[in-house]
């Protein structure tokens, strides 16, 4: 890739990042209903992060080994979030199951809204 094309790519990514920042900020003031504000904000953040990784960090032109590192990082992050949130999302069910009468430590504090 020649030098001018490289610089043009950088500037295009830069403009896209600024436009996406303005978009996410503007949209944040509109009520989109339950999960959609957070979903859209995170979706735009993922797109912005991907642009930075692919173009500014040259992942797009890097060896497969770089992709292995990148994939390993993202995979670990997904494991961290999936298992932690699966635990917290299902904790209240434990009280109604075979272990009723022995509520989980975190469950009552969470639902009653007191400081743990």
């Amino acid at each position: 890739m020649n030098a001018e094309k490289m610089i043009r790519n950088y500037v295009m990514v830069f403009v896209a990042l600024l436009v996406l920042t303005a978009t996410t900020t503007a949209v944040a003031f509109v009520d989109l209903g339950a999960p959609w504000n957070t979903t859209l904000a995170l979706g735009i953040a993922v797109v912005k992060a991907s642009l930075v990784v692919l173009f500014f960090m040259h992942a797009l032109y890097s060896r497969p080994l770089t992709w292995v590192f990148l994939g390993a990082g993202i995979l670990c992050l997904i494991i961290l979030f999936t298992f932690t949130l699966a635990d917290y999302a299902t904790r209240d069910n434990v009280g109604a199951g075979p272990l009723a009468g022995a509520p989980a430590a975190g469950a009552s504090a969470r639902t009653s809204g007191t400081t743990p």
Partner: protein
Amino acid sequence: MSKSHPRLLHHFDDPEQQLEASQSGMWLFLVTEIMFFGGMFIGYTVYREAYFEVFAHASNHLSVWLGGINTAVLICSSLSMAMAVHSAHQGQRRKIVFYLLLTMVLGTAFLGIKFTEYYHKYGENLIPGLDFAFKEGNAGQAAIFYSFYFGMTGLHALHMIIGLGLLSFLAVQAARGRFSPLYSTPVEMTGLYWHFVDIVWIFLFPLLYLVGRH
């Protein structure tokens, strides 16, 4: 590239292998950084789900203006950093120094705005532990939000300060003509680090400043 490359260390076969080793090491370090910040992001997510209402109210005390401007400043610094790496690959010494210094100016501007925000929070009694006061809901829950806010942005700011240190070192080296198309590894690696720090902020900005706004 030849075996007589001036920067080639004896335990590498050739400059390409040496560069690939540096790139692998840097990306591996960034993976550990992903997990480092990831721990705080999952903590924030769990508490935000638990104390949804108060987190939204507490979030609305942050200035979207200052946060948004800071996001733009950081994106500008990332472009400048990318241009510094590009100039290093092209062997344009004066341009490397210029873009490194520009990146430093923008990074410093970011920190200046950040500490202005911290100072406002000090004036509003929103720093946990320092006469923390919050009237729109459970103050204990709001203190948790602000603990995450200061913890995450503070750690991000620390990364910026380390980055500025690296950049000032590089600027001196670049001015002395240490980098050429044959050898620009330190500029490239610092670039990866700087862009990573930018990515952390790309997630911090919506999660801390925007999600409770509507």
